[in-house]
């Protein structure tokens, strides 16, 4: 352990974490005290997930972990071992935006945009399990994400509209398949 003037360095041993991020196998080294958010941002340079509070209150760092929306600031980096993580960087397909991203743009659902990655991930988690949510259900699912710019109006509208688009796309492809 590094020493300077007889004082021990507080650096703790790093662990190797073997995980999947946005569909790709990823290995990274992290200290036991580092949050998943810190690992994503500072180790893996995936800065799309944002830090607003580090206490799980604002939701700006929301990612999907095995399909569930979690605040990555409340997950330790080492807990990503063997998990499947999706961040905002993994939301769009190669050449096409996810319907949520497209609807956020069309409805002007972002002003400063800092909360947007978190909202997109929470909304994706909702629509993955409930393709036809009511306004109330959308509000409930997004209540862990704070937005200070928009008053949520245009966010809620975009999520409802994206849900509709996704349902239509799925119905159309089902019809084409039958």
């Amino acid at each position, binding site marked *: 352990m*590094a020493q*300077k*003037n*007889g*004082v021990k*360095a*507080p*650096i703790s041993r790093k662990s190797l974490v073997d995980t999947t991020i946005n569909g790709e196998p990823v290995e990274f080294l992290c*200290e036991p*005290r580092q949050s998943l958010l810190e690992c994503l*941002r*500072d180790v893996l*340079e995936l*800065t*799309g*997930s*944002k*830090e*607003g*509070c*580090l*206490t799980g*209150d*604002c939701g*700006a760092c929301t990612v999907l972990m095995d399909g569930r929306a979690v605040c990555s600031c409340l997950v330790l980096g080492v807990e990503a071992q063997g998990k499947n993580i999706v961040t*905002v*960087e993994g*939301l769009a397909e190669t050449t096409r*935006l996810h319907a949520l*991203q497209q609807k*956020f*743009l*069309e409805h*002007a659902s*972002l*002003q*400063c*945009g*800092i*909360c*947007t*990655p978190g909202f*997109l991930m929470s909304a994706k988690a909702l629509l993955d399990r409930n393709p036809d949510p009511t306004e109330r259900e*959308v*509000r*409930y699912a*997004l*209540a862990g*994400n*704070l*937005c*200070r*710019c*928009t*008053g*949520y*109006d*245009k*966010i809620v*509208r975009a999520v409802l509209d994206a849900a509709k688009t996704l349902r239509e796309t799925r119905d159309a492809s089902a019809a084409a398949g039958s």
Partner: protein
Amino acid sequence: MAASSNGNFRVIGTRPIRHDGIEKVVGRAKYGADYSFPGMLHGKLLRSPHAHARIKSINVEKALKLPGVKAIVTGKDLPRAENKIEQAGEMAINPYYLSMNILAHDKVLYDGHAIAAVAATSPHIAEEAVRLIEVEYEVLPPVMTVDAAMKPGAAILLHDLRNKEEGNKETNVAQHHQFKRGDVEAGFKSADFIVEREFNTAMVHQGYIEPHNAVGIYNNDGQATIYCSTQGAFDVRSLSAQVLGVPVGKLKVVPAEIGGGFGGKTTIYLEPLSVLLSQKTGAPVKLVMSRAEVLRASGPTSGSKIKIKMGATRDGKIIAAQIWMAYEAGAFPGSPVGAGAMCIIAPYTIENLHIDAYDVVVNRPKTAAYRAPGATNAAMASETIIDELADKCGIDPIDFRIMNGVKEGSPQVVGPPFKRIGFIETCEAIKNSEHYKSKLEVPFRGRGVASGFWFNAGMQSSATVNIHTDGTASVVTGSTDIGGSRAAMAMITAELLGLPVNDVRPVVADTDSIGHTDVTGGSRVTFATGMAVYEAAQDAIAQLKKRAAMVWELKPEQVEFRDGEFLSGDPSKPPMKIKELSKRLARTGGPITGRASVNARGVGPAFATTCIDVEVDPDTGKVQVLRCTVAQDAGRAIHPSYVEGQMQGGTAQGIGWALNEEYFYDDKGILRNTGLLDYRMPTCLDLPLIETAIVEVPNPGHPLGVRGVGEVSIVPPPAAVANAIYDAVGVRMTETPMSPPKLLKEILKKRAAENAQSAAAD
């Protein structure tokens, strides 16, 4: 009411997707904390655990010995800055106090006041080093409220503050403003109804989701660069230069994408420290605040005490107002009480007026601008009183406002009479709304309306419009895009040049790449920077006309530009679009850059009127907002979606201010709600959809009629909520937040009084 009509415009008034949108939905946009550089160090700050104390000594020896620690700076490392007042956006800033706020010099003046900054190889090491710094304090009594601070014998925060009205004595009152008109005594004598109340509003924070941040890179030649999220890169440059004691020309500020500001990012906290630590270590240094630091030590807006006495005649004319108001400035002078005093009755013509306003220092963080600074506190008081007067006169509250409302030619509290304004129109928009016409007859539900005024700001802006070789264009400004203003700048450019909006790329440049531009604040970007963009586009067109004349061998004045085409008036010379002409620029004299800089005059004041329905739970005092409609005069809505966004966002902040948000200090002056769980901002579940009515009464001082829309919507909600609560349960709330315990107390008090009355009757 129609959302917006775009009249003769092709682009203005439409709703294109913002140009910077994709970067923001795929996570690629770079905000301040997203910057990193090779060899970068991380900094953390030591902050005061006391509200008020003298610093006897600071010992950094142990901290410096920790491996990984590279440098520590304290207040001694900052030069004494000049004691003078400087305008930065909507707030005045004194570099002398600003420097003391960035690092305490000999006293700490609030819980969280910065004392030292550490740079280390990781943020965790810097944090541990902070804990190893030893400070000896002499703890002094905390002064937490304007009452306590103004009391004779109160502990004094700043010994150089003197009361010029009272023999130059030491004081906590930094300033006293007074505004008078007519004769209030006589006014009250002729009033049929007089209402008098005292209001208290709690200190609240802007609550932007992105904490303050800065990366400083100092080069050995004395030049330094700061990357940070700010509403005003040029202000960061000039304020940092003053705090560091270096010429402005030594600093370059690169504005990152900004994660909200609402006025709170118009001043500096970390920026000069990142440069100082970089200078000491020879490495880039990044500083990012935690949420607790944001709440404890970045500028909230003032809590306040306001006493109002207002009188009206039986036929509904407001005849006199006497107002006493005191705002918490925080630890250093500079609350927005002066603005509050000029806003408090601004929507109404009142012949007899007397306002005393006091700026008071207290052991709380130095306040910063917050969306229409000072006006919301003021309107909570005046708009509640006006509701009560309307009620006493038996007049509909909207009609009462229209009867007394200001219009073109009405006097302002200070300055010349109003030019063309849209206050009455916002009242009418609410009156005609489906919402206001709807019935509300369920028990414990109520409806309230309130109005608000904000000056808006002009100030300096620069813009360049570059014509590219393929006939597309870029528009470069120095205005941080905090809510979609890039789109508005591109739309104005596209409108004038006759281009599709996606052929114009809007750019926000750093302080070396564009002329001086004041803050994104004061609702001024679309107004003033929009004016610069308008003029820069006209300059480009004038130059293009000359080139067309060269091509056609005509005189420039023979060339006309209409609907995106250059016309020769000669049938043998068919019209040319910019796309064609741009191919010929190299051969006709080279590239074209339209330029303009403005110090914008002709500011158009903003008004908003808001209607809110609430349901009160009579057993808990909890208030749920059921429905909300806001009408606001935009002058001209360039991009209606982002105008609505400003209206909705301001309204949501106003509702949070009304119902939940407050700084909660204990008796030692320590902030007890330093996280977003306890500093309770509205969530998705707390709000309904927010209906908007954009009113467009063109501002005669702007070529497109723009007023600016960023702020005024925050002003009415607290009073509208208070008025709705009265309508629902019959109690007059005079305090914010109107949180469940406070409202329940009033409901129980009323119930007890009613019970006592009926018992007496029995």
